[in-house]
């Protein structure tokens, strides 16, 4: 009876995840050649490693096909409805940090807060005849944030990549996107609203509540938590 641990299958996120487990005495590595998506865990029995795209890990955890998984806390909140009932955060891992923020053109010198943003959205709708467009791939998080803060008269438009460029291309007036330093935003003539932080994300080890948790699985999880010091 093994528990399945899913981790990102490539890039810095994978390397940092391997380092994080390594620092706690568990060796994670890809098996065989670089193209294979199975891995090996050494240092503990009963844990099986699956390498997946970070974007798929939230769904696999929610479906219970992974017992444990490493992914960004932003992705979990965006992709899993009612995530806090279905998953549990076991450990924030201290890397992969990025902020989901609302950004507007720097030329909007009259806009600093959501309060301004809302007033501008109202005026924009009156003068342009359509609701101010916010480009994002984080629809749920953005909509919930704006509803909680009582912002009206906007619309979300989907943008799956190069979101910073949409304002310059006039396909949106503002964006809701992930940034770590804000450098790309600034280079595209955008600035972050002072109260526009939707979520501070980092790589996090999650546990699925809906996976099969037999006594043997639980014993393995206990042993793993001991080793990880969490």
């Amino acid at each position, binding site marked *: 009876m093994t528990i399945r641990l899913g981790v990102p299958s490539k890039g810095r996120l994978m390397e940092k995840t391997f380092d994080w487990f390594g620092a706690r005495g568990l060796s994670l590595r890809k098996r065989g050649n670089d193209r294979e998506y199975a891995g090996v865990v050494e240092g503990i029995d009963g844990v099986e490693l699956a390498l997946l795209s970070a974007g798929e890990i939230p769904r696999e955890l929610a479906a219970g096909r992974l017992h444990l998984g490493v992914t960004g806390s932003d992705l979990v909140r965006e992709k899993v*409805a*009612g995530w806090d009932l279905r998953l549990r955060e076991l450990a924030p891992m201290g890397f992969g940090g990025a902020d989901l923020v609302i950004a507007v*053109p*720097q*030329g*909007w*010198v*009259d806009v*600093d*807060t959501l*309060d301004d943003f*809302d*007033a*501008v959205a*109202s*005026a*924009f709708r009156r*003068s*342009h005849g359509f*609701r101010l467009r916010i480009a994002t791939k984080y*629809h*749920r998080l953005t*909509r*919930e944030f*704006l*509803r*909680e*803060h*009582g*912002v*009206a*008269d*906007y*619309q*979300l438009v989907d943008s799956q990549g190069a979101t910073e460029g949409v*304002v*310059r291309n*006039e396909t*949106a*007036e503002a964006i809701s996107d992930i940034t770590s330093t804000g450098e790309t935003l600034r280079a*595209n*003539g*955008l600035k972050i609203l*002072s109260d526009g932080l939707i979520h501070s994300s980092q790589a996090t080890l999650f546990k699925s509540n809906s996976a099969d948790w037999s006594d043997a699985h639980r014993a393995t999880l206990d042993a793993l938590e001991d080793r990880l010091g969490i």
Partner: protein
Amino acid sequence: MMPGPMGAETRAEAARLGAIFEGLGAQAVDTAILQPADVLLDLYGEDIRARAYVTADPLRGEMMLRPDFTVPVVRAHMEEGGDPARYCYAGEVFRRQETDPERPIEFLQVGFEHFGGDPAQADAEVFATIAEALAGLDLRPATGDIGILMAAVRGLRTTEARKAALSRHVWRPRRFRALLDRYGARVPLPAHKKALLAMKDPFEAAGPVVGLRSREEVRARIATLRAEAETPPLSEEEVALIDAILDLRETAPNVLSSLRDIAVDMPAIGDAVTGLSRRLDAMAARGVDVGTLPFEGSFGRTTLEYYDGFVFGFHHATRADLPPVATGGRYDALTRVLGQGRAVPAVGGVVRPELVVRIREGRA
């Protein structure tokens, strides 16, 4: 077994309710399940996407599985209906559930809508009809009147810009509160605004214009901000009166007497208070126990923004976790939006028959 949201018992209950409404002369109407998304999005904004299923038709564009009947019924009435008119309907509505997997995603709704006529009488008729149809169940009624708050905002001794901003956020309590605090000078002007208004050339470090919103529009907003900063704050007295209206939570007769006191200092709400008084009389004449009827000044402010007068709901007396069994209210402004300039006074309510069955049989 629990009666499903669509089971035979639920359908029988829907038929019983429909017969009651038809007995009052309501014309039974049907609407398409797939509704054009643009109308609903225009009315409710992005929030509706969290609540309704959106799909796409290659020729018609985005369509929504009807989240309620009110909008299509109003549209049909504004196109061809006479005055006054009563309609009833029964059918499935569809709601996305983003947080609670226990809540059904499709359920029956039976509704009764009343267009035209004397508003106090129409309000009383809709409320009393639904109350009577649900008699015998252990329900707790709730009532309110968004029209009183709106009248209070219109009557403030301040600029039209401020009144428009407050009216726009009547349904978003948090932003309404933030605006009220700002206009009442309960919070200082933010440092960013102070600095902006003090600048000789606000565009000094602005960089090039990016996107559709022009420099002219930014300039216009700065002028608005400047005018706003020079406008004297709302008087403490007026802010206190708005707070008093929002905090009302008593039996209807006690609320009426409090509101009459408030109207002495704020005559703008006089007509709305008279309307409440006439409504309560009309309800009493229809046998509603007005003396114990609860009234809340803030009731109905967090629903989708179309109720702008009388609002009501019937909840299970002890099970606060259940959705309301029936809700309704007045939506005159919605008819103006959908009637392209033409407006008709309108009030209506909906019942969820599956909850009626569950509660009646003690299976809630």
